[in-house]
């Protein structure tokens, strides 16, 4: 049993074998009046030294030396756990409803200018998932938004994350096979309940195939790894009905003794409606971008205090901009909106840095400005997330991708 994520990590380990060397001079020095090391940790007049794409040191109470980039505030590069930069429907295999043995890694197009634009909005790490045109679409991948245009250089070794969806998308456009299916285009499921049935059948079959080797099928090993909690599943579920279905799926697998799924709800706009389900199972939620009128995809409704409500209940949340880069849609703006809805600055900062880092299993590498971690920095001309502040500079893996003017 080999997951794509595991393969990639082998490649990365081989590439990153350390060679003992004398300490090199610092590549880049950045200075800020206020450095947000991590949520709740502020360092005044901080000098950040960067070497080999990593943060070499963070020195408090220093003045800016000549040649250093100097700005008002700095925070860690942001992480979008639902960035959606894919070339569309060709990024997911649709010959089956449940695809578990493929990864979206092969459809990443690093020559797409969308990556640069995303990096310039301060998003330095993303989770890219296969589009939700079938029930389980395959493996997602954690990717840096800038760097060499090569898979090996951009993929981050994080958690193994499978992607699936509940709701309208997996059945949208499918046509029922009346009588006998005569061609490839007759697809199922054609309803929301069919989608739910596919999910339960997949896990049931996988659990059964452990007992009956004859029933083994392609990709069953991955589903069993999900049941064992070794593979995390991001499930897109906009409405409260879909979120409930995801939680019931988890609880049903536990009740049957098949295992315990490690689920993260993606685009959980209506998580606020029945939060008790999420509290009960400790399921984290990635929120979609805040809607001006409250209305979102699949007719879900998300009020502006959703972040506040879920945080008060102890539900782990991350914010997402779904890859949008416009001034009013980007991830930093989403953090601002969450603050407008009642989150504190530090909570909002966590929602775009440390929390998504944990959800992607990359919290040791990104999400905070600490020595040894990736030199991913967002440079602001004022207080971060304020409506009157702007991102004026971005450093990604030690490279300046947006230079302060």
């Amino acid at each position, binding site marked *: 049993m080999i997951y794509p994520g595991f393969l990639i990590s082998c490649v990365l380990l081989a590439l990153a074998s350390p060679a003992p060397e004398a300490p090199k001079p610092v590549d880049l020095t950045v200075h800020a009046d206020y450095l947000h090391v991590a949520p709740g940790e502020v360092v005044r007049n901080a000098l950040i030294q960067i070497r080999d794409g990593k943060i070499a040191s963070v020195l408090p109470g220093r003045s800016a030396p000549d040649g250093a980039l100097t700005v008002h505030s700095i925070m860690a590069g942001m992480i979008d756990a639902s960035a959606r930069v894919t070339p569309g429907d060709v990024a997911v295999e649709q010959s089956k409803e449940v695809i578990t043995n493929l990864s979206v890694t092969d459809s990443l197009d690093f020559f797409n*200018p969308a990556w*640069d*634009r995303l990096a*310039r909005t301060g998003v330095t790490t993303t989770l890219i998932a296969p589009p939700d045109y079938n029930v389980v679409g395959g493996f997602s991948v954690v990717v840096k938004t800038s760097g060499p245009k090569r898979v090996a250089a951009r993929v981050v070794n994080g958690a193994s994350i499978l992607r699936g969806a509940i709701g309208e998308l997996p059945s949208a456009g499918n046509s029922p096979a009346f009588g006998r299916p005569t061609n490839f285009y007759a697809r199922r499921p054609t309803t929301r309940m069919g989608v739910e049935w596919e999910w339960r059948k997949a896990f049931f079959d996988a659990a059964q195939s452990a007992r009956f080797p004859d029933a083994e099928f392609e990709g069953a090993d991955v589903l069993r790894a999900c049941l064992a909690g070794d593979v995390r599943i991001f499930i897109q579920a906009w409405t409260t009905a879909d979120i409930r279905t995801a939680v019931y799926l988890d609880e049903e697998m536990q009740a049957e003794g098949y295992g315990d799924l490690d689920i993260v709800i993606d685009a959980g706009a209506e998580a*606020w*409606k029945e939060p008790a389900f999420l509290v009960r199972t400790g399921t984290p939620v990635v929120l979609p971008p*805040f809607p*001006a*009128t*409250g209305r979102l995809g699949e007719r879900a*409704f998300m*009020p*502006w*205090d*959703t972040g506040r*409500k879920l945080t008060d209940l102890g539900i782990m949340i991350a914010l997402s901009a779904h890859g949008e880069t*416009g*001034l*009013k849609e980007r991830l930093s*703006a989403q953090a*601002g*909106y969450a*603050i*407008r*809805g009642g989150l504190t600055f530090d909570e909002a900062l966590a929602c775009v840095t440390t929390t998504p880092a944990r959800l992607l299993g990359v919290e040791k590498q990104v999400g905070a400005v600490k020595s040894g971690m990736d030199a991913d920095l967002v440079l602001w*001309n*004022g207080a971060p*997330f*304020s*409506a*009157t*502040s*702007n991102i004026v500079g971005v450093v990604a893996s030690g490279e300046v991708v947006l230079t302060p003017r």
Partner: protein
Amino acid sequence: MNISSITRLTAALALTSAVAFGGDSHAIKVGKVITMAGEPIENGIVLIESGRITAVGPASEIQIPWDAEVFEAPNLVAFPGQVEACTSQGMDRANESIDVAPFLNVVDSVDPVNFFYEEMLRAGITTLNVQQGNSTVIAGRGMIVKPSGMTVAAMTVRPEAGIKIAITPKRGKSRAVQLMILREAFAGLRRTLEGLVQEANDGNDHARREALAQGRDFEAEDGKGRAMTGSGWIVEGLEAVPRASIDSKILPLLAIVEGRISVYMACSTPMDVLHGLEIAKENGFLAQTVLLLGPTCWKVSDEIKAAGVRGVILSSTLEHTERAPFAEEDTVTVLPTHFAEKGIPFALASQNSTTQSLWFQAARCVALGVDREVALAAITSGPAEVIGLSSEVGTIEKGKHGNLVLLSGDPLSLQTQVRYVFIEGKLTYDRTTDTRLQHLMDGVQPEGTSADEPVVEDIHEEERTAGDK
């Protein structure tokens, strides 16, 4: 003295007493007044009488009239009601299928109960210039309204306050046809007027003779002729033609050429701007023209500056990003700073939403490096100037409409809330009673609109428990 004159006298007395005993005199006491006409005033008072501001100043200097209704909010900040310089929302279908339709009037399509006006009020916008959509050649006449009132008449601030002209082709048209129709509209007007002058000189005043045959004559003013004015072209001898002889369908076009009505010109690309400026100059309405600019139009900012139009309105896109075909990097142009550097005053436009409303646009301008005062002016006094209403709205000053927004803090902060809105002195919006906002901000379902979890009654319970022994 007959009965009807007594009734009239009583009514008049009642009216005078209503004024004398207040009712229409308001004093608003707040922690701070941002007037947008000079320095902010700490602990300020705004006096409003009969809808107009009569005094603004520090509490120590202002004497509150004994009959004034006092509204005290020591923790709030008063800010001028914001002005939306041009919008095509709040109407029943914004676009007309007829290409040249200046005889139409949006008074017939403004919908007072449209949620749009409620949204605008909630965002602190108190004056809106409603013009037809951009899918037109020459649109119907627009109007300036306030977002309160159950009838169009009650909402009206200025009727017939401008006409939309689109240079960008309307849906389904080529640019060449769009411009041909536009030029032909003015050329046709000229031919018609010349024809009328010819007829009048020949003694064939058909319109008057037709009216007389129908047993009526032209009203006093309409019966007279008036010489044509304007800076573009002029038809000599128009004074010989009674104005009522001119078909009312083309009268608004004549008003454009004579420079008597504002023109809101929709230009989505730089080439549109150049064509538009040329047509406006030829037909004498350049000085009354307000340009609605698409994101790429910054490329002709020098030409815009030189043309001397009355104003420009930026779209909600404040940053323009483009990439040359073989370039490795994007070119980003920050539009508000570009126009500010060129010395072209601009007004901002909102997109009817919490995330794109005027205050937020202004805040984003500041984030992009625009001076704070310039950004605030671009949502208050600036758009008031653009719509030709700077003597009435846009600042908190003596003589202007009592349009005030009471904010919980700085106008450009994300955490600031619009608490109260006064329009012409009247408390028109109160956040505490805004159930729709509570739904949007706090997820509170208005009473009686949500279905509870259905309770499944066990109809066999009694039978079963009775069987338990």
